[in-house]
Structures are given as C-alpha cells and as structure tokens.
C-alpha cells in the first residue's frame, strides 16, 4: 500500500522539513553504498531515488533519526543486491560497469584498468551469488560501519556481528573460488 498524508506531513510521521534534512544528510552515503554495489553512478542514483521514495511513502516512520539512517542503509543494500541478483539486469550491470570504468579515466594504464574492472566484476558477481544478508553485511562493513552501526542498520544482535562477519567472509571466499578458481587474492 502506498500511504500519503496531509499537506506538509508525510507518511503519518516524517514532516517535509525532516525529510529534506534526512535526504541531504544521507543521500551521499546511500549513493556511495549503491555505487559500490552496482558499479555505476547513474544506476546508483536511480536506486537511491527509489530508497528515498520508499522513505517518502513509508506508512510508519516514527523512529528516531538514527534508526531512519539505519533503515536507509539497510534498504539501500537490499535494493542494490536485488539489482545485482536480477539476471535481467546482469547484462546492463556488465555494460554499465564497463562504461563506468571507461568514464572514470583513472590514472592507470590500460592493462591496470582492465584488470581493475575485471576484479570489480568478479566481486560483484560473488556478492550477487551469496546470501543477501551476508552480502549486505560485507558491503556495509566495507563502507566503514562499526559493529554498533551494523547491528542497528541490519537489525542483528550486537553480540553476533563478529560471527556473522566471519561466516560471510567464508561464504564469499568459497563462492569466489567456485566461480573463479583459486587466486592469490582469495
């Protein structure tokens, strides 16, 4: 159900000003997380808009601001990983990632650029193959979240973050080897 509210009031809880504040505060990180997952800035922005549209239409949004941030990051990683997993979009992802690698024009030679692109592509493929909660955990940890932040955003017990990380990394490594063989990096 889409819920809309009174003029100037959103979704039974968040007011217009609050929404704008939340948008400006969290948008860069949301896009950053999504770009890390899907590899294309434009695509990441499209997904970020979806994330904020969900917030905008959220039926109940009475949580403290900190929890809204957690919800945003959790929703972002969910959407990003869903996008990766969608086989229909796989070709788009590969194409987009290729464009992204070309458009960034990093200070590296052609060989390094190709190598980097291929490595990113392998990582994204593995993230799309392992369990979504594990992929979420790895992406958010790589974004610099502390255990406390991971616990709040992903709604997991603070006392089990370490174990879940170990398991997620093991799953990542195992799937990577299955798909791409044993390499130095993994």
């Amino acid at each position, binding site marked *: 159900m889409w819920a809309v509210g009174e003029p100037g009031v959103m979704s039974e809880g968040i007011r217009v000003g609050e929404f704008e504040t939340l948008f400006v505060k969290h948008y860069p990180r949301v896009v950053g997380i999504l770009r890390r997952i899907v590899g294309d800035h434009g695509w990441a922005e499209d997904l970020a808009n979806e994330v904020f549209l969900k917030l905008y239409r959220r039926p109940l949004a009475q949580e403290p601001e900190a929890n809204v941030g957690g919800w945003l990051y959790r929703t972002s990683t969910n959407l990003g990983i869903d996008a990766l997993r969608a086989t229909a979009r796989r070709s788009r992802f590969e194409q987009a990632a290729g464009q992204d690698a070309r458009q960034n024009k990093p200070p590296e030679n052609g060989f390094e650029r190709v190598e980097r692109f291929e490595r990113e592509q392998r990582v994204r493929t593995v993230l799309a193959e392992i369990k979504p909660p594990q992929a979420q955990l790895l992406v958010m940890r790589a974004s610099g979240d502390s255990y406390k932040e991971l616990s709040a955003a992903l709604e997991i017990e603070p006392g089990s973050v370490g174990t879940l990380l*170990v398991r997620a990394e093991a799953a990542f490594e195992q799937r990577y080897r299955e798909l791409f063989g044993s390499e130095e990096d993994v």
Partner: protein
Amino acid sequence: MNCVSENSLRAYHDAELSAVQDAEIEAHLSRCADCGKRLGEIAATAARVEKQMVSLGAASAETKIDAQAALSRFKAQQGAGVETMPSRLDFVADETNVRARSRRWRPLWIGAVAATILLCSLAFPFGRGLAQRFLGTLRVEKVQPVRLDFSALDGNRPLQEMLRQMISDKVVVTADEKPQPASTAADASQLAGFSAHMLDARTDTPKFIVGGQHAFHMTIDRTRLQDIFDQAGRADLLLPATLDGASVSVNVPRSIMVEYGDCPEAHPAGSTQPKPTQPRAAAWANCLALQEVPSPVVNTPSDLNLEQLAEIGFQLAGMSATQARSLGQTIDWKSTLVLPIPRFATSYSQVTVKGVQGTLIEGSGRGGPDYVLVWVKNGIIYGLVGHGDSSNAVALANTLN
C-alpha cells in the same frame, strides 16, 4: 579462561572490544596456540575479502555527490513533490448529500475516463505493420493505478485558454446526453443497454440513475499540441511527425449508477429548507454508490507510434524520461485503464475483486474517511464509492450479482 569465541576473536581483530576485554583476550592468546592460530586465520580471511571489497569502494569515491541538487531532482521527479504533498480537494459544496459524496470522487472517475482518452488514445502501440490500415480499437480490461501530477499546468491561464481553444476548434462532439433517473433495475438496464448489477449484500431498494453517452472525434494538430507543450514549459518534449492529422474517436457508453442507503436529499445553495442536523458521518454511514460503465472505445490510426506518445504524456505529468519509459513498458496499452490517483487520496492498494485485480483508494474528507474501489470485469468498469471504514469494501463488491 576458556578458549575465545569466534565472535570475540573477530571483534578483537576489528578493535571493537573494550580495553578490559582486549586485555583478557590478549592474556589468553599468550598461552593458547589454538586461539592464536584461529585468530590468524580470521585475520587473513578478513584481509583478503577486505581487499576485494575495498576495490569496489575505490571507484565510488571518485564522484562528488551534490545532495542538494539531488534533492531538487527528486522533488521534480516526484511530481507534486515534497513541498506539496497531496492536498484535499475541498470542492464539495454540501457533503450532507450522497450525490455530493459521489461528486467528491467524480474527478477520479472522470480522471479515469480522461486518462483513458488521453493516454490510451495516445499510447496504443498496436499494428504498426503497413498492411494494417484499419482503425485499431482499445477496450478496457483492467486498471492500473498511476500517480500522475498535472499541478504544473494549474494556474497557467494561457495554457488553459490554448487547450480550451483547441478543443473548441478540433473536437467534434457527436453525443452528449444528460443523465436520467430510472425507477427499476430493468428500466435502467433497458435505458443503458446493458444489465444493471447490484450488491446482494444490500437488501434495501436502491435508486438508479442512467448516465448519458458521450462521444467525440478530433483530428490532431501537431503544431498546436507542440505549442501547448511549449506553454506548459515542456518544449523539450517533441511530438512525432506521424501524429499530425491523426484522427481519434472516443465513445463513452451510457452508464448506470446504483445508489443505496438512507441518504439525505440535496440541499442546494439558497434553499429555504433547514439543513439536516444529523451528524454527517452518521448520515452517510449507510450510503453506497455503485457506478457501472462499459469500457469506453477509443479508435486511432493503427500506424501511429503511440507508445512513444504515452511516454511524453507521463513526462508531461511530472515523470522523468526514465520513469516514463519504465512505466510505459509495464503497461499493456491495449487493455489497461490508467487510473490517476487523486491528490486527496490518503492511500491506495491493489486488491482482488470478483477474481480480478482492482484498486482501492482511500481518502479523508470533512465527513470522515471514504473510499472508491475500481475494477473491470467482462468489459464493464465498476466503481464502488463508500463512506467510512473501507475494510468491507471488497466484501461488499464481491456480492455483486
């Protein structure tokens, strides 16, 4: 101290423990080779995976993100935008009247038909084959709720005058019948030309009103339409040349409205009769209006690329080009009634009615909550308008005989 758990070893590695906990683990590690080995394995795996994950982050850091600009784009893309979240339409002059109640929802109903005329006539991607030269025909088989916002066109008097003038010049009305009452379902059916359906859940005797037929045809003048887009501030939307001279005809058949309940009579402005003193919510609690109309029929030239025009229509309604394209691709234009969600709606949801998909839209007016439930079955579009709790709306609709 027993051996350290995997969770604690990992947290120790990540410096996520307190100083006291760190000291305890270090003391244990100094005398436990197994835990030391396990910590080494955890650290090595973490380092390898982190190296892979960080490679994704390196590219992400290269683009500067302007959140304020993104917010402006977001607001523009969401039509009404954050600053003008849906507002109620306070156009009901006398809400103590059930007819007024149905008028409250009339823009939705009219909007649905208008959207059919506008979008479906402009977006009917059938028969592009050169051999298919006869007219293509649209008939509605299902509804698709879409959030459209034409608020950018409000208050634009030159634009409204251009539209009025174009309609005056180009639209030829061939049928414009007035509504007329009918005393029984049989009379209503005979007048409307199709069988009136009623709700078995309501045992009280309803009133019947047969809505008139409306039909028109028009020849599209591309230049004038383009001028209108320009006036609407959307000069970027370019209409295809094939549109020019295309003939579109629309026929909205007669409809039937079945009104149930002990509803107050109209209290027109200037009336000397005292106004009802019964509380509004209570007065309307038993009122229910069921509208039934056979699918409007829209004919357009079959070789017109109208799917492209639907995208333009959606963009005119505030969507981005990407959104318009994505949405246009999800709609089967041959059989779908695009149902604009009214601004005063508080929520909407998709439901199953009589085995088909319907849309339940809830609103809130001066007299309390109300709703409209729209579905299409066997070529008839149904709209059930009610007052109060909408939780029974689907159950009521399912008793349609």
